């Protein structure tokens, strides 16, 4: 495996690393990373299923424009994982459909 890594390229070290819960497991994040970046770092590429076909989705545009990376963070659905900062002890859960199953009639 290559010794080249993103970190080797830019040098230094994060001020802090911590974990948050994602679907019942711990994911390690560095301070300053978004939820999406931390999930990519853990090898997770999907954290949402679509409303109609239940297809898995994750980050696509990476800049908050496509809304494909919607996720539930600390109980709040429809957060853009590529914009929301990862927080120590946060609770991130994959979002099914609209994320508002509680409102289903």
């Amino acid at each position, binding site marked *: 495996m*290559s010794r080249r890594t993103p970190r080797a390229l830019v040098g*230094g070290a994060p001020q802090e690393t911590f974990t948050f819960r994602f679907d019942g497991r711990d994911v390690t994040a560095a301070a300053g990373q*978004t939820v*999406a970046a931390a999930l990519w770092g853990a090898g997770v590429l999907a954290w949402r299923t679509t409303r109609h076909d239940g297809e898995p*989705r994750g980050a696509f545009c990476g800049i908050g*424009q496509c809304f494909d990376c919607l996720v539930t963070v600390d109980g709040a659905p429809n957060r853009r994982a590529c914009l929301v900062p990862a927080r120590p002890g946060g609770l991130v859960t994959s979002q099914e459909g609209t994320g508002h199953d509680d409102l289903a009639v």
Partner: protein
Amino acid sequence: MTTSPSDPRTAPADLAVVGAGPAGLAAAVTAASLGLTVTLLDAGARPGGQYYRHPDPALGATRPQALHHDWAAFADREAELRAHERAGRVRYLTEHQVWSVTGSGTDWSVHSRTDDAAGEPVRARAVLLATGAYERQLPFPGWTLPGVVGAGGAQAMFKSGLVLPGRRVVVAGSGPLLLAVAASLAAAGARVPAVVEAAGYGPYVRHTGTLLRNPAKLAEGALYGGALLRHQVRPLLRHAVVEAHGTDRVEAVTVARLDRDWRPVPGTGRRVPCDALAVGHGLVPELSLATALGCATRTAADGTAALVLTPGLRTSVPGVWAAGETGGVGGAQLALAEGEIAARTVAGRAVPASLARRRDRLRAFADAMGAAHRPGAGWTGWLRDGTAVCRCEEVPAGRVREAVEELGATDARTVKLLTRAGMGWCQGRMCGPAVAALAGGETVADRRPLACPVRLGQLAELPAD
């Protein structure tokens, strides 16, 4: 225009700049240096926009310049911005996403939101839109699989979060960004099994003069090319990824040869194993605020809608200026030059001839590149009826074709009303170019009354006027 010494929270600024990327940043520091009071709003936490996107300080990168071409151009202007901010000449509002600009003449209100609340109120005598661009996507079978990401998206996630979507990343689509992305990914340790470019370099030959008048841009291209050769990556021209394979995530892509019209040539497909695909077909100017204000648009050389601008970068709406990608995608150097020009004309100052010439040269280069990478009409040949076109509303190509061929839709708006394509969260940003191509209509600038989602409560709190 004169400087207003009163409280910036209540008194109107001389100029409100929307967007702190290369164009907005250059405009804000230039305007402040000419004595204007400036309010600069940006959705991000740090200046630089997408081009100069860089890690949060908490990530502790000691060499952020390793992520960027021409980092000094940004670092110098950021230092100027901070100095103007300390001196009270620039009010810089970070994490403020602007959803609407209202007003006329010399009385403008800029409405924004933060993550969970209304943004600071902003009033200004003039407005400069430097809202940048987002990536142009053309759908293909499998493009919704996890691991298929925007080329710019992969770059953005890498530059801000120091992460990669996979270890073997195919880079595909069209445009100069692909080489930059492939070089970044390779430098960061990814294997890049292929860089797949739909255009040939033949169209460049027709613009040799324009290319030679831009030695810095050629050198930038050679730098990426050289970096790729070091990593044994050679772009495959006139080819496209016509399908991504996998169940829960992408495991391989099919790469096929294209004819001159971007139609896949039957029987030329071959499978390339990978665990991620970074794909994009150039950029689309972000015009939501501008079109809501009624600014006139034109079709740019790359086929996207861009603003009609005067040489002094005024839009068709008095009191509203624009710079950078909004006037046609052209890259960071052009954006820096245009930000400076726009700020000077807002301030009523002359534009130095050398600056105007530099702008014209870079704009000509951008037009040549845009024409070379404009998608050929044949690309829709790789769509199947079941291929999702609208990712948000999960509308397949077959339903869009049915709307066009059987229900008589002749433009993207009618297709949207019949199929919901473009009606979802992203408001057509991802599927817009594809739906327009399938509908066979002219390129039309998207109209979005709100440039980003806004809570109803925030709308309700607006004053009645």
